[in-house]
Structure formats: C-alpha cells, structure tokens
C-alpha cells in the first residue's frame, strides 16, 4: 500500500509536469466551466428581479451557482475514453506486465489535472463571487466544511469508478462513446451541475433525491449549504458501494476476455 501511494505521488508529479505544457488549454477549459453557472446566475437574478419566486432563497441559489463549477471540476473524471482506447488498441499491455495497479496512472492523471485546474479555476470563480458578493453566503461553521470534504472526495471517487465501469465496457464493445455521451448528458442534468436540483418541479423531487447523479455534484454542495438530511449520507454510501463494486466486477470480468490487441 505504501509502495502504491509513493508510486501515485511520483506519477502525479510526472503528470503535472507533462500537463504544464497544456496550461493555456486547461485555463480556457476552466473559463468554459464557469460560464454556464455564470449565465444561470444572471438568468435567475433577472427572473427574481422580475418577480419570479424560486423554491430556494436567492442567497442559496447564488452561493450554489458560484461554487458549483469548482465542485463539478473536482468531482469530474476524463478516464473512460482513455481507458477504452487503451483496451481497444492494446495500450493496456504495458501496464498489465508491471507490478502495480493498472488504474494508478489514471488516478495520477486525474489528481494532477485537479491540482492544476484548481489553481486555474480559482480566478474566474473569485471574479464571479465578487460580482454577486451581496447574495453570496459561505458557511462560517467549520463543521459544515468538515462534512463537505468527505462528501466531495466520495463524489470524486464515485465519478472515477463510474468512468472505470464505462471504460471497461470496451472489453466487449467496439465503441463506448455513445454510452459515455449519454452518461455525460444525464450527469449534466441530474447531478445539479447545470441547474440546482431544488429548482426542478416538486413532483420530481423524490426521484431526484434518490438517483445516483445527485451525489456526484449536488450533494457535496447541499452538505456545505446545510440542506441535507441524515439519510442522504446513507444514500451516498450506498451508491458509492454500487459504483465501486460495479467497476471492480466489470473490470475483472473484462480482463478475462482481454485480447491484448497489437504487440
């Protein structure tokens, strides 16, 4: 375990070094990530000014939309496509003959990406926060932040497991892009990454509260902003087990059928 952690550290440092070559592209990516919630903020503020009555307070809405791009970035993963390509083209071969977890390099890649992106996304988010500072309320209680951190880390682990699960389908399928795209669209809508789930019609709320995508983005923010119930932690733990267990099962089953294309 210690060896794997040391290896993860050195691989992450290596990935950061390589990604520094693409820092301009990464910065633009972060600006693009902040734009949708910024537009949503403008639209909602306009609507409230015109007399609309959303089911949540303006301060909740503002705080949520200012922070959502950071949470969505931290809990995102771009592993599925790379993993699928390495299975299909045989790139996995180089990892399977080495004495380390095959997913360590993807984990390092994701960690490095997060480290770099955190630095790059901070300025546009701070600007957004300053523009809407009158309605922004960041919680002062340390307890909220202490609960928020594990919820955020579990959400990131769930997305990574989801990516491994979908990427591993390439053991049997020629192309996983359509499934990946469908998952991405569902996640955009149902995770609360685009619009807070609280703004959906009341009739959908029981479904939205229980479905897995909520726990990838919305839930950590709900924890931070203090709108969760005790049962929600159990839901997140349950979906975590399902996704990680599913990823392990599909990966192990897939390895049995692996054909190691190419040399």
């Amino acid at each position: 375990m210690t060896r794997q952690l040391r290896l993860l550290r050195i691989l992450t440092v290596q990935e950061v070094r390589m990604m520094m070559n693409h820092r301009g592209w990464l910065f633009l990516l972060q600006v693009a990530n902040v734009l949708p919630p910024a537009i949503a903020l403008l639209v909602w503020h306009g609507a409230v000014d015109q007399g609309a009555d959303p089911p949540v307070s303006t301060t909740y809405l503002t705080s949520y939309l200012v922070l959502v791009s950071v949470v969505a970035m931290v809990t995102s993963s771009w592993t599925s496509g790379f993993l699928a390509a390495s299975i299909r083209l045989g790139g996995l071969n180089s990892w399977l003959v080495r004495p380390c977890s095959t997913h360590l390099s993807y984990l390092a890649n994701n960690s490095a990406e997060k480290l770099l992106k955190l630095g790059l996304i901070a300025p546009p988010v701070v600007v957004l926060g300053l523009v809407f500072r009158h309605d922004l309320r960041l919680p002062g209680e340390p307890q909220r932040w202490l609960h928020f951190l594990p919820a955020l880390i579990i959400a990131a682990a769930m997305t990574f497991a989801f990516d491994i699960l979908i990427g591993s389908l390439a053991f049997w399928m020629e192309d996983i892009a359509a499934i990946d795209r469908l998952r991405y669209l569902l996640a955009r809508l149902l995770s609360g990454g685009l619009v807070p789930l609280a703004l959906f019609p009341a009739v959908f709320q029981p479904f939205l509260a229980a479905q897995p995508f909520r726990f990838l983005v919305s839930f950590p923010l709900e924890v931070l902003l203090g709108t969760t119930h005790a049962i929600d932690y159990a839901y997140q733990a349950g979906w975590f087990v399902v996704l990680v267990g599913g990823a392990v099962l599909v990966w192990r089953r897939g390895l049995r059928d692996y054909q190691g294309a190419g040399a």
Partner: protein
Amino acid sequence: MRSDDAIRATQLTKVYKYSEQAPGLKGAVKGLFKPVRRERTAVDAVTLTLPKGQVIGLLGPNGAGKTTTIKMLCGLLRPTGGELEVLGHQPHKRSFDFLSRISVVFGQKSMLWWDVSTYDSLLIHREMYAIPRPVFDASVAELTERLDVAHLINIPVRKLSLGQRMRCELVLALLHGPDLLFADEPTVGLDVVAKLALRNFLAELNRDHGTTIVLTSHDMSDVAALCQRIALIDHGVIGFDGNLQELRQRSGQHADADLDQVLAAMFRGRS
C-alpha cells in the same frame, strides 16, 4: 515443475471468440439481430519446457500464434485451456512476485513515458519495483554504460531516434534485474548498427546474468546469433523444437543455408 525450469506449459491453448459480420448494410443489420459467433484457436495444445538461463526463439509466420503464446506467458492473456507455470507462478494471476521477476520489451510498443526523459521513467520504475537507491544507481550506471545511452537518458523520449529509444527501452526493462525477459520483435525497424548493438547486449545479458530470454523476431539473423533453441510455431502448434543445426536437417536445406532459406522451406505451402 522442476525448480530449474523457467517455463512449463502443458497443452496450453488459447481460443479467441469473435462475431463475424457480412458485408454491407444488410450484413450489419443482420449482425445486429443474429450475430454469427466464431471461434479461432490461436494456440493449440502447446507443450513447452524452458530451463532457466536458456535463450529460445519463437519463430513463425504472421498469425502463427507466437505473440499470443508470449502474451499468455507474461500474464497478459488468460489461457483457455492447459496448464502454465512461469517462474513457479500462474501468470494470469499477475502477482507482484511474478511481475517483479519478468520483463517485457515490445518492439512496436513503448514502455517509456513519451513526454519526459528516460531517467524520469526509470525513477517511476524504481518506486514500482521497490528498488533500493544504491541498487538503482548501480543498475542505471551499468546498463547505460553497456548500452551506451548515458548521454541520452535526460533527453525527452520523443526526441530520440528509434535505435536510441530501443536501447533506452532495454535500460528500463532490465532495471529491476528480471530473471526472465520476453523480447517481442525487439529489433524491428532498427538499422544494422543498432540491431547488432542490441543483439550483442542480449547475448551478454544471458551470459553474464543468466537471464532467460524468450525472443520472437522476423529477423532470422537475430535468432541465429542469440538462440540456443528454436521453436517453430504455425497454426498455433509447435512443429519443431530444437537447435539450428537440427532445423537445417529437418528442412532439407544444405548446411550453409541461412535461416531465412531454412524457414522458407519449412513453411512452404502454408495456407
């Protein structure tokens, strides 16, 4: 398995399953609802024992099953049938002990990290294989001197020529001192000088460290220079297992015939 055997395969078999699709749109639609499942036996009940310290050349035409055999031996593929033990392990279980004692060089696939220097890749392998610092330093010094790459290891891999890169690949592959090296077409694409340097190095490695080497190559001069033993694979079956002299006799070629002529005679009429 005797403790002085590196590899022991009995009735080793690998069957690939795939779906066949008829041409055109009609075929695609038909394949969607009623796929035609096929099986292809890539390795068919191969039995092979390799003592430690031996260099064996697996030869055969394209699609003969030699790469599939190597992939099973190094744990990449799970055999469909038969028994396989490599260094006392079942390779497909991919235990740390097994993977720490083997190494694989793919002539057509790089194990080095592309965007950083060879030395950075070596540092990653140091952690991966838990190599103590003094051992690491000594190995790097020895390997880079023997392969004449000391001046290259701090250059990004993408900037190296193919010959330079292959030598760096070998430094990486041998850093942890493997007992068994799988070299899958290691000289492919190299010029004569680079090829000769690589070949000499592998011979020295076997002589000085007793490393067992399993080599596949389409370059018959590699095999003739390095391998004490040759196994010919065709249609997934070992058709010959012996030394070069015995192979010449079997092929009916004269004593001075080179290996290309010998193999052409052996595989003539192959469908």
